[in-house]
């Protein structure tokens, strides 16, 4: 039987603040173990948390990016459970009044179709430290003899993002995560690096016969550490569940780990008690009130979102998915492009320049486009000059090289050096007549039927005009003069 998968994603994203969530220790990956810790993030007796204003601001940004509601009142709660890399044995988190509620992630698939996955909520919490499991050889928790704990990560601000079960395939789940990642990067709240653990995700997976409205029993997959493993893990779990249902077996609700090496999910059943987190409002922290004015102020400072660019590029500009994605996934270049278009008013031409000649120059010199001496406004000017036929594409290439060398505004160069394309018929006629007079032999050959001489004559005219002549006009005039 063919089944429909029902998938929901829960992911944790570390925010890229300068300091931790509740103390001033640096929020930095890769430092020497236990050097970025203080009484607060070590949960020392007597130490107290004070929330990081930037982390709260980042949450509002994230909420707005996904069209979530930002409630006017929010608070922190304690989630109580024992774990050796969690210093206080409770995590400061948010229970019933998260900073954002609802919202939707709009994402596209490779075929360019747009899809939506609703969000339940995004809440703010603190990260735990990191345990290294030792004494067993393979670094896994099961079978290890002891663990070594590094608390540098403890207290790093963490955003937990929970989706509704709106995803229907591994492909959708990955596309959703990619959209989440590029959006969070675009709004500057996280590096979202799966390899450094700043994005960690779990997937809830169930299957049901196509057409069914009810949900099947779900399992939760953990330990997926790349988008590739997310895709493989979900596909493997869908296959496993399908085979079980086909065989008349029952799915057990459980937590599974993804075994990358063997390409299978494995049961992580623990002998722990059922979780009883005993949430209650954290009495060390006071509630947050987020005014409508504050939300508007954050909204006013939001950068362009990837989904907005997607719609503009594909619908208004008519770009294909490949070009669109290429721009969006290089946000600095997309930003450069957008600013150029504002000046040029010519999206397609501008895109050709940005992804073509300019990218080539950038590659050759090893300087990123947005850091080169070519400003987006000047590039826009250049495109506009070509578009207005003030210069031809040959001159444009030369000008771009000179702009890359730091000469500044192309318009200024054109004006200063009289490089504007000549379409004045008298001037053109002068160039043509001079060329015809100086190349009598070639003219004779042409008239004798050697039509390939025509190209040579055009080139000669262009040359004597120092490239300023409009090639189309030169063509027409030559043909007229040569009688045909």
């Amino acid at each position, binding site marked *: 039987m063919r089944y429909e998968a029902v998938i929901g994603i829960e992911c944790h994203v570390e925010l890229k603040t300068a300091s931790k969530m509740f103390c001033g220790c640096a929020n930095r990956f890769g430092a020497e173990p236990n050097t970025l810790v203080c*009484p607060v993030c*070590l*949960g*020392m*007796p*007597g*130490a*107290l*948390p*004070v*929330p990081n204003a930037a982390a709260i601001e980042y949450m509002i940004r994230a909420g707005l990016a996904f069209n979530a509601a930002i409630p006017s009142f929010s608070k922190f709660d*304690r989630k*109580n459970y*024992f774990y*050796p890399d969690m*210093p*206080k*044995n*409770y995590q400061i988190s948010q229970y019933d009044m998260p900073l954002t509620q609802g919202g939707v992630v709009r994402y596209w698939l490779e075929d360019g179709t747009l899809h939506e996955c609703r969000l339940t909520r995004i809440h703010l919490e603190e990260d735990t430290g990191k345990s290294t499991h030792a004494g067993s050889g393979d670094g896994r928790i099961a079978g290890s003899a002891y*663990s070594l*704990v590094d*608390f540098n990560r403890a207290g790093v601000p963490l955003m937990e993002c929970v989706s509704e079960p709106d995803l229907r395939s591994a492909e959708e789940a990955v596309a959703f995560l990619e959209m989440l990642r590029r959006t969070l990067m675009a709004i500057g709240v996280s590096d979202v690096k799966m390899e450094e653990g700043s994005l960690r995700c779990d997937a809830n997976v169930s299957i049901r016969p196509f057409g069914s409205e009810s949900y099947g029993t779900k399992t939760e997959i953990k330990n997926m550490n790349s988008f590739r493993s997310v895709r493989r893990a979900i596909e493997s779990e869908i296959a496993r569940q399908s085979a079980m249902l086909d065989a008349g077996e029952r799915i057990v609700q459980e937590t599974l780990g993804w075994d990358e090496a063997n390409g299978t999910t494995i049961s992580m059943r623990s002998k722990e008690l059922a979780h*009883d987190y*005993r*949430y*209650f409002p954290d*009495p*060390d*922290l*006071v509630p947050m009130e987020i005014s409508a004015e504050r939300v508007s102020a954050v909204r006013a400072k939001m950068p362009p979102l990837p989904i907005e660019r997607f719609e503009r590029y594909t619908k208004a500009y008519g770009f294909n998915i490949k070009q669109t994605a290429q721009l969006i996934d290089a946000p600095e270049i997309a930003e450069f492009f957008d600013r150029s278009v504002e000046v040029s008013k010519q999206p397609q031409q501008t895109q050709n320049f940005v992804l073509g000649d300019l990218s080539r120059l950038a590659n050759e010199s090893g300087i990123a486009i947005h850091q080169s001496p070519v400003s987006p406004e000047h590039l826009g000017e250049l495109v506009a000059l070509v578009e207005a036929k003030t210069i031809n594409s040959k001159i444009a290439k030369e000008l771009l090289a000179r702009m890359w060398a730091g000469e500044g505004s192309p318009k200024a160069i054109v004006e200063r050096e009289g490089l504007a394309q000549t379409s004045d018929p008298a001037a053109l006629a002068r160039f043509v007549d001079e060329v015809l007079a100086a190349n009598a032999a070639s003219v004779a050959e042409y008239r004798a039927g050697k039509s390939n001489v025509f190209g040579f004559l055009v080139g000669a005219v262009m040359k004597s005009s120092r490239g300023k002549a409009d090639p189309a006009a030169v063509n027409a005039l030559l043909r007229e003069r040569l009688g045909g």
Partner: protein
Amino acid sequence: MATIAKSAAEIARAVNARECSAREMIDATMDRIAAVEPQVGAFLSVLERQARESADALDARIAAGERFPLAGVPLAVKDNLALDGTVTTCGSKMLERWVAPYTATAVRSMLAAGAIPVGKANMDEFAMGSSCENSALGVTRNPYDLHRVPGGSSGGSAASVAAHEAAIALGSDTGGSIREPAAFCNLVGFKPTYGRISRYGLIAFASSLDQIGPLTRSVEDAALAYDAMAGFDPMDATSVDRSVEPTAGTLREDLHGLRIGVVKQFDTHKLGADIDDVYDRALHDLEALGAEIVEVELPTADYGLATYYLIAPAECSSNLARFDGVRYGLRVDGVDVAEMNERTRAAGFGPEVKRRILIGTYALSSGYYDAYYVRAQKARTLVARDFAKAFEKCDLIAAPATSSPAFRFQSKSDPYSMYLMDYYTIPMSLAGLPALSVPCGWVTPEGGERPMPLGLQLTAPLFAERPLLAAAHAYERATMHAAKHGTEVVEVAR
């Protein structure tokens, strides 16, 4: 000449005036500690070397022209307050050898004002108790009768000041832990408004109730200590960002124009004839000073205890989860982390702490949260509203601090009878109000040999520390109850 009998105000004046040096003051205090500690047992550690060094450093600064409001004042610090480099035990085996790597903000403020810590004071383990008998690390005796408890949980703090081993002690009050031992030891014990003094560095018992405050031999000294410590601390999000007006200069000599409320539900005529007489007399004295006595109601006063004994344990169960044998303190090994945690906590915590962690865990657990914790938080709202209403009719509320004077060791065997000791102090804690206990008279307990002190509890609206201290000062000056009796341990100056 350095004499330990002086008040903190007198010491600071003399040291600033260079009539005596801080070093002389500390040397004299150390002599006194050596003399009486074997009987009193106020301290878990005496900071002899650090205190003498600090005194020398202070003397140098004073010689250079600086002046300090608490110059050279010997300070006892309750052992739940972090002081960098000192063992900070909370009266528990769990932290018996834990050296604090930082200093509590309140202690820092006292240091900046020129006070000199001389020792870390004994306490009920993790501040849970009303007699100091729950300390896992030592016995503290009441200097007024060594067979009796000093009160708790700030019992060592109270005993040290009563026995003149310090001029000011810092305590913490969650449900009465400053006011009750102050009453038992003939001291002024002051719990400011919740949030007035930073809790940063105070090892938490119940975060929404804990408040640091001074225990002193005079209201003026309490005001000086309060002035040094009050104010917003960016390290404590629950400290209140609100201007603090100094109180020490505004103490009054009379109570004209002040309405003092007496709580109908706190019918004191059930405490025993002797005690009732003391409190009746206190009300007359307040009236004689010009106050108008009015009756007010706190209809939910009787629910205070039940409310408190849900909220405080709930918060404590979470606050004390960090004592797990991983990062600091005691560890008792086990085959895995969970067993190590369980064994460590079994060995590290005493029975009262375990009881409260268990009850709090239960009150927060799935299925009981609404019935217990949320109900208690709602009841807390009613208690606070009752006070707000009562304060429409009066400026201060007068009540007993305790229902009896200090009792004998081991006389409260069942936990609930010990909890009842806090009956008069808990409602104020639930409402976050500033309250203090000031000595108000003496009774000779049944079967006792000598008179023991009682405390009058005065309570003010939120943030009204100024009128509270002013009125307490007027009452103290007019009655001088504190000076009327004593014991050999106490008598050093009078």
